[in-house]
């Protein structure tokens, strides 16, 4: 009899990237940063840096672009500190900024590609003093692209937030600002598209598809 323990093991998700600060701590940091406390802002960046980078990865073409999105996000977070009223969680607010920066970049790249008559640019080659790390990053991004390249940004985002990060669809709907039904629709399409590839590539598939 086949071992089905892997199905239960999916319940144990990878640790969700977070800074280890409670929502109240984050609110306090934002309040202090709003008053011009640079140390508080640095703490806020330190706590959210990996999470923002993780979110940026689903929109980016490569790790360098994810780094750029992360940087731009924190510039914008600092610029908009005064506009944060504290009605919503800090993480949701930062996610919204990350998302909007990433989509703006995507539009900009598309427009430039359209104007120059070329196709979407490929991986940007940036000089890195550590060739090993560079190769690792490239291999990792190739792996991520292998899954995500066919998915439209919205489906990619929803699949990542629900299936990979373990958020609830209704939570994601609130985070992105769309209806829960739309989240489920996108999730359904994303899973179908990704798994169709995985299943088709599996050697056991031909046997199973009788």
């Amino acid at each position, binding site marked *: *009899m*086949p071992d*089905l323990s*892997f*199905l*239960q*093991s*999916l*319940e144990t*998700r*990878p*640790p*969700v*990237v977070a800074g280890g600060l409670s929502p109240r701590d984050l609110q306090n940091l934002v309040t202090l940063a709003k008053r011009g406390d*640079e140390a508080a*802002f*640095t703490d806020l*960046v*330190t706590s959210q*840096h990996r999470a923002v*980078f*993780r979110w940026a*990865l*689903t929109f980016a073409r490569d*790790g*360098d672009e*994810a*780094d750029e999105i*992360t*940087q731009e996000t*924190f*510039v914008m*977070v*600092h610029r908009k500190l005064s506009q944060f009223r504290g009605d919503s969680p800090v993480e949701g607010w930062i996610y919204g900024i990350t998302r909007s920066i990433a989509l703006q970049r995507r539009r900009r790249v598309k427009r430039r590609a359209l104007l120059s008559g070329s196709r979407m640019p490929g991986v940007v080659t940036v000089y*890195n003093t550590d060739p090993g790390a560079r190769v690792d*990053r490239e291999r*990792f991004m190739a*792996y*991520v692209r292998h*899954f995500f390249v066919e998915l439209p940004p919205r489906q990619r985002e929803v699949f*990542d937030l*629900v*299936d*990979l*990060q373990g958020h609830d669809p209704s939570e994601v709907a609130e985070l992105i600002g769309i209806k829960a039904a739309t989240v489920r629709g996108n999730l*359904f399409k994303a*899973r*179908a598209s*990704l*798994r*169709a590839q*995985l*299943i088709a590539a*599996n050697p*056991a*598939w031909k*046997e*199973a*598809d*009788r």
Partner: protein
Amino acid sequence: MTTCSECLAEMSTVRLADAGPGSAVALHCAQCPECAAVAQDVAYAERRLAYALSNAQPGMLPSEVSVNALEGSERLRRKRVGRWVRGILVAAGTGLVAFAANDYYMSKAEQRGQIPMETISLRCLTPEQAIELVTPYLRSSGSAVYMTKGLHVITMRGRADEFISAKIQLKYRDAPGQCSLPVPLTAPQPDATIPPVSGTPGKD
């Protein structure tokens, strides 16, 4: 009993973590090693992806990002202030030019209102002929000559000395005795200081 095709169809859209021991996928996979292998592959591929994304390391240190963010934000703030200042300066400059232009044209109009005007009724010359006669003598800034449609008159605007010269011309050619005579080739000059004529007859 679920078939392999049904199991694969279910597997391609359901959240695998939800496919617990009692689910259709789990029940079928327990019986079918091929489908179990596919399910295992799919589950592990997604799990690897989730871990790969979660373990990805940013290329920059948080302190570096923080410093860059503070500097970038300050640069943007300065840019924004600069844009405001430029906008205000442009608006002020435009206002100043508009004010100066308005002042200039108003004073011109006022000047024009102060220039004396005189309407002369004609006996035998047509208004067009009269205009042709007097135009060369109305040379100062703001001077003009008009005719009124349907009336046998012309209205002149200009300086008093210009009126005198123009009236002399009109008096000679529009005198009662001249009306039946053809216009002579040369007219007497009113004085020696008349400027050389180069204006357009009927100039407004």
